[in-house]
């Protein structure tokens, strides 16, 4: 299959998650992504092992997000290495980094300096909180970005403490925004012949993600979101929207008419709440009655009744049930990579191009694995 970004060269100075996630997607779409890493230790993510899981000396986390990339080791504190890297930059289309403000200037690799070498370069920068203001030197870390952004007040029930998203959501969204900005700049370069500087930050990305609520907040006498006391799933959506316990597990009940729902599950007593406003303002009363009722039968029984009543609902699956399900297996979402005998199964690119799934079986590189080849190829 011919991939849309074939022929593009991306140099990735970024470490950890946000920048490398953008690099991964560009690689999936056909770009050649070369990580520029410090000799020896490389990307700090190599040592960041969640659940203490490792493969061939690097953390499994590092492997997942750096598959399909090459590695060029260079000591950016050594002027000779910086000169070599600049020769590489002169031949690249895109570079990305997530150093704290000021570091790239000290290395002589800030946008103005590299623009002199390669005027059409697309220069991508990831920061935690932007490059000015009181937080510019604060660690750009996912949980901290979630915490200052207000996001921890939308998940969990109203009587529970602030609850973060249990995954690096700011990093991931910021990575998608970086990829979008880089791709848009590449489109512009192709159309108008100009290079670009693209900046994203974890905080701006996690604020963009909250656009619905923030727009409501900013236009409503600063009314804060309130989580429902029971089965909260979105502070701005009325009952029944949520996940409920049944006699033997849990089911998810989506948005819709309360009347349709009550008829489908044979629940009386909520007639006074039929109507959009009541579904929102009386959501705790409605959800509490629902929860009481739903405890009486099994998930399977309820799902059958809800489906017969054409009400949006679903089972709640864990990874074991999900990965055994036909609907999951048909996706072909897994791919297996190998490095030095260590084998690792991970997910593929979620985008399909011209009807085809995009796989790549190239494992994440060892630090400096590609130095020799890159030196020759780019005449460094």
């Amino acid at each position, binding site marked *: 299959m011919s991939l849309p970004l074939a022929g593009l060269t991306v140099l990735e100075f970024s470490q950890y998650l946000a920048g490398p996630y953008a690099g991964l997607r560009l690689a999936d779409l056909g770009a050649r992504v070369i990580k520029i890493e410090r000799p020896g230790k490389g990307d700090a993510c190599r040592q960041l092992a969640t659940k203490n899981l490792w493969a061939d000396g690097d953390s499994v986390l590092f492997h997942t997000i750096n598959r399909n990339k090459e590695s060029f080791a260079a000591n950016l504190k050594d002027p000779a290495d910086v000169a070599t890297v600049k020769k590489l930059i002169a031949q690249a289309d895109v570079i990305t980094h997530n150093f704290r403000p000021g570091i790239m200037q000290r290395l002589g690799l800030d946008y103005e300096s590299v623009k002199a070498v390669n005027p059409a370069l697309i220069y991508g920068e990831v920061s935690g909180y932007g490059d000015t203001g009181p937080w510019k030197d604060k660690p750009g870390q996912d949980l901290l970005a979630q915490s200052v952004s207000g996001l921890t007040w939308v998940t969990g029930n109203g009587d529970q403490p602030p609850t973060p998203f249990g995954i690096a959501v700011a990093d991931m969204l910021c990575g998608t925004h970086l*990829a979008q900005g880089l791709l848009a700049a590449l489109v512009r370069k192709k159309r108008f012949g100009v290079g670009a500087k693209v900046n994203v*930050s974890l905080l701006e990305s996690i604020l963009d993600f909250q656009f619905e609520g923030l727009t409501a907040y900013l236009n409503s006498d600063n009314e804060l979101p309130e989580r429902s006391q029971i089965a909260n799933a979105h502070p701005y959506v009325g009952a029944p929207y949520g996940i409920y316990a049944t006699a033997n597990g849990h089911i998810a009940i989506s948005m819709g008419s309360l009347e349709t729902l009550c008829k489908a599950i044979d629940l009386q007593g909520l007639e006074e709440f039929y109507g959009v406003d009541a579904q929102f303002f009386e959501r705790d009363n409605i959800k509490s009655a629902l929860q009481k009722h739903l405890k009486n039968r099994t998930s399977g029984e309820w799902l059958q009744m809800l489906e017969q009543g054409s009400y949006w609902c679903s089972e709640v699956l864990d990874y074991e049930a999900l990965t055994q399900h036909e*609907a999951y297996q048909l996706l072909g979402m897994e791919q297996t990579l190998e490095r030095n005998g260590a084998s690792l199964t991970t997910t593929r690119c979620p985008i399909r191009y011209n009807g085809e799934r995009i796989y790549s079986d190239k494992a994440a590189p060892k630090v400096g694995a590609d130095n020799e080849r890159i030196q020759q190829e780019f005449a460094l």
Partner: protein
Amino acid sequence: MIKPLQDITVLDFTQFLSGPSASLRLSDLGARVIKVEHKVKGDLCRNIYASHLNIAGQSGFYQGINRAKESLALDLKDSGDFAQVKAILPHADIVLHNFRPGVMERLGLGVADIKAINPNAIYGEITGYGHDGPWRDRPGQDLLLQALSGLAGLSGDENSGPVPMGLAIVDNLAGAQLVQGVLAALYAGEGALVQVSMLEAALDFQFEPLTLYYHDGEPVDRGRENAAHALVGAPYGLYKTQDGYLALAMGSIPFLGELLNCQPLLAFTDAGRWYAERDAIKTILAEHLQNQSTAHWLSILEPADIWCAEVFNWQQLVAHEGFTVLDMVQEVESPGGRYLTTRCPIRLDDQLLTQSEGGPTLGQHNSALRAEFTGAKP
């Protein structure tokens, strides 16, 4: 500044959130977005949420996600109306939809139909679960995707049952992935079919916990105390203080014990045990941290370079210089009045990508579009 997608036209059949979030980003980046809406009902998002969030005459969420788009209201089953769409198609660079499988084909707007009219068009679609398999006709709704994809098992703690993430995360991710694919095709300069399903986007989002699951086969265990990430050891979490909450991301446990003057933490010397013993460590930390104010703890932890932050709500955030310095809020104008909303999170050439127009009223641009593309008098 030249916006990257200026003079690019998007014919947008999407509604609700996933697709409109994609066309919003294309619009932010300079594209013209013509939003095709049902003649009577419009985008269902116009009415879906609680009515008290009415902004400038529309649902607040519609306004948030449809800024600067043009609204073309018509009945796709009416041949006269359909002819208008056909008149625009040759001028569209990108066509987007998020109908369930088969709907666009039935309307005569499947990828083959579009290709016949405009071979260079990029056809982008979002489905819930793809075109095959037992879930293909299920509703692609965010909460259901969270429930089915395992996402509801990642937040909160093990005492809480499944805890959905409190915003439409899967919609947003599917939209973001579609934008990436569409922009890549635009760069390649070729007509292309770009497909994203919400399920695949939700799985990609979980590449880390899923890969770990493929690796060790162990169910996700969120822990029972101050849970924040099922895969990360102590101290990672939010902690109640005397007057609020404190986020602690990373730090050596004995070092934290010294800094915070919390003796019991000194015993946890083996970093390899901070995951297995996270509940015990977090219980000690939680007990200790509630005795002083957030500012007190920050004044000790920040100078020692411990990764920490105060937990804000929007009121605290919006009042803080760390927020105001971003210029994240823009004012836009819609027929119903001016309103405030967020801007595009991407900066280009050190400039903000802002817009001046808000969301359109239903059919606001009908006559102008008819005049432009069919030559009819406005």
